[in-house]
């Protein structure tokens, strides 16, 4: 496999740093994110290297926890989406017929809702919190990925090696698992990275509207939402989480682009 280009490698490195940052939080580095450690709204200084928030909590462990929450939630959600989309997309694409119609109709229904509207409805039904955020991201990312996986599966199932596998008497699970899945994996990987950035944005939007994770847990969306009201009095509250959120989405997108160029190389020419 060809190596990713430099920009994508840079993005990958950024993501790796963020993951390490988040893992540090689990290991207790930076301190207790919920403890009241000092006076309210203090600028960065010894004892609170990223300042303190409106409850006198140190921002460093909170940002670390926030990165972890957001990345973990989005990653799990995308894995669920990938599993669901792969299953239904491949079956629908390979079998066609009524099954295909049914899956596509369901996907179409979900696709008709703007992601944030779907997220708000889910959060209202399940009650705000991690489960609602997870379900929102999954429901928001399933339609697109299922459609693309299905399209890829349709193309793959007409290939010779699939036909010969069927003729030689391979059972359906084996055909799908051994021959179709590996050939749509690229599509899943590329779409997965995009879904990840959508997930982070959805989590942020939900928190912004007050449907995010439960306090005192920090997520990037929650931190930005709270920090926004302190832009003048305590800019450090929004600076850290804001930069991290944009960097995270940007890095994921760049990696996704690189992956796509890798898997679907395009020819081009110059006019000038």
């Amino acid at each position: 496999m060809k190596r990713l280009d430099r920009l994508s490698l840079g993005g990958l490195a950024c993501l790796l740093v963020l993951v390490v940052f988040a893992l540090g939080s689990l290991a207790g580095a930076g301190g207790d994110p919920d403890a009241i450690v000092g006076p309210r709204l203090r600028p960065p200084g010894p004892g609170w290297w990223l300042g303190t928030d409106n409850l006198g909590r140190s921002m460093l462990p909170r940002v670390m926890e926030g990165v972890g929450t957001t990345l973990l939630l989005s990653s799990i959600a995308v894995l669920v989406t990938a599993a669901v989309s792969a299953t239904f997309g491949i079956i629908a694409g390979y079998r066609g017929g009524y099954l295909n119609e049914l899956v596509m109709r369901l996907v179409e229904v979900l696709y008709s809702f703007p992601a944030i509207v779907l997220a708000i409805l889910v959060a209202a039904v399940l009650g705000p919190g991690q489960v609602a955020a997870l379900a929102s991201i999954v429901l928001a990312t399933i339609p697109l990925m299922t459609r693309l996986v299905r399209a890829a599966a349709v193309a793959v199932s007409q290939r010779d090696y699939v036909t010969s596998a069927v003729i030689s008497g391979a059972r359906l699970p084996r055909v799908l698992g051994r021959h179709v899945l590996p050939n749509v994996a690229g599509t899943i990987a590329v779409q997965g990275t995009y879904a990840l950035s959508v997930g982070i944005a959805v989590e942020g939007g939900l928190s912004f509207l007050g449907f995010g994770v439960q306090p005192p847990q920090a997520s990037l969306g929650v931190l930005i939402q709270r920090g926004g009201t302190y832009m003048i009095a305590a800019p450090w509250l929004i600076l850290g989480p804001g930069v991290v959120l944009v960097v995270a989405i940007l890095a994921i997108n760049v990696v996704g682009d690189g992956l796509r160029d890798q898997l679907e190389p395009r020819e081009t020419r110059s006019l000038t």
Partner: protein
Amino acid sequence: MRLLMWWSGRALSSAATLLGVSVLIFAAVRLMPGGFAETVLGPFATAEQKAELATRYGLDQPVFMQYGHWLGTVAGGDFGISMISRQPVGAELLARLPVTAELSLLAVAVSVLAGVPLGVLTAVRARPGGGGAAGRLLSGLGVSVPEFVLGSLVVFVFSRYALGLEVGAWVPLTQDPARNLATMVLPAAVLSVFAVSVTARTTRDAVMGVLVEPYVTAAVGRGESPWFIVRHHILRNAAAPVVTLLGTITAYLLGGALIVEHVFNLPGVGSYIVQAVGRRDYAVVQAGVLLAAGVFIVMNVVIDLLVGVLDPRLGVTAGRRS
């Protein structure tokens, strides 16, 4: 004949989708915990008051009956009565629709006017194998800054430093078009950032795809000027995916508008839905979400039609892509 068949199938499947959407909305609204009675009447309400309210809005009926009744009235153009304002939901939606429509149309206009030239330019200038790191980073940044971050920032900076465009002083278009536009520019700009990036990206991909076609090679061979080639060969042939994208963007903008309306305090459909969800104002949530989904579905049928006209080769088999 095949075309006619295809179109009737398309219409039928759109109707089925809309029906599915209506079931999902209705189920979601009824599954929300938290009583409309406690919310609408307040905690001091007596059991009789709550029962009376339930009867008045037909909420004491079995859920299937309620759904059937709702579907029937909606089909007749009646979206019910808001439990909070006690006014018809349809009239309020109609009053709020222009705000969201104006916001979205402005954003679409910006993304076409800025995104398409940007996409063409970057595609035409690209060297084979060249990364175009700066362009990729820039367009990546465009899709990476969520509206609520950008919106809060813009609201703050523009009001804080009195940069001219007003925030939080919305006036109806019919009352004072100039001032209305002044208050809509910022929200539309915030809303369009993501759309511009996506449009530029899709345009770039489409144009790059066309550039390797034999007729472009032939045109280059004939010594036609680059911009002549762009105008006469490329734009027309690269239009289909870009137009298709507009359908997806519509759905995206309807969702984005919800956040932007909230941030800029614009009385559009999005803020109506958000407030109604928080109060379990069933009729409003149902009508608002159904409208958003309906617009999206209709928009996509129109897009398919347009793509058919633009590029007869793709015709009816054109699938949508993101």
